[in-house]
């Protein structure tokens, strides 16, 4: 490993932070989903890096399961989003406030 593992982990931290900022500032539900995908990928990178550092495959298998869960999450989330758009004609998360007290 000529590149130190810390460099990979710093990149992972940067991507996770970008995803967090995206969730905080954007209001289009689609882009919120993409920011969540960004955070999931940052965590995946940390898993793969540490699997390499410890020469242990468990980290790579965790990434496999994260991939499966992310796929299901995106499918269900996007179909709910299409539903919301058809009934309310918006995907702005500030507009969908039926449960606001």
């Amino acid at each position: 490993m000529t590149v130190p593992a810390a460099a990979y982990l710093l990149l992972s931290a940067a991507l996770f932070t970008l995803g967090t900022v995206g969730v905080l500032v954007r209001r289009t539900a689609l882009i919120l989903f993409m920011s969540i995908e960004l955070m999931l990928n940052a965590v995946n990178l940390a898993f793969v890096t540490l699997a390499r550092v410890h020469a242990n495959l468990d980290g790579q298998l965790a990434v496999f399961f994260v991939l499966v869960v992310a796929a299901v999450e995106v499918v269900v989330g996007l179909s709910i989003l299409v539903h919301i758009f058809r009934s309310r004609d918006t995907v702005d998360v500030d507009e969908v406030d039926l449960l606001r007290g």
Partner: protein
Amino acid sequence: MEVLLFAVSAALSVAGGVGVVAARQPVHSALSLLLVLGSLAVLYLTLAAEFLAVLQVIVYAGAIVVLFLFVIMLLHARTPESRPSPLGGQWSLAVPLGAALWAGLSYAVLQLPAGSRELPPEFGSTEAVGRELFSRFLLPFEVASLLLLVGIVAAVVLGSSPAPSSVPPRSASGREEA
């Protein structure tokens, strides 16, 4: 060589991440996400995770991003976020908080001891990952297949039922009147 590959991929993925967050059009965000996913696949290859690199390209870049693009096409979203946010100052608060989060995470990362172990041959190959998956991780694997089935059923149910019309869409001028 490996350093160059890492530098290029890292720069591309950070640029893509900024693009996801800052792009004005959802399509540009989706394409930036594709850039992030592709450069992460390259990084997985340098980390001896070839099976995951292939999976990343097929599942993430091939399926999830395409799904995003389809939904963007279906929603034909009007120019998004044109009106000012009802919660002001999100950017000015989120950026310092994000910087603080990154500083904290970096501090935690730099506490880790350096150095890595020797890799056994075939580490991260499809055969090695598959062997683990079908022996020690068999039960989680079966549960994951059940989860995928739930996802399929949910997508079919949500996609085929008519949209509920009982909720009146909020009028565009509603917020200005209030």
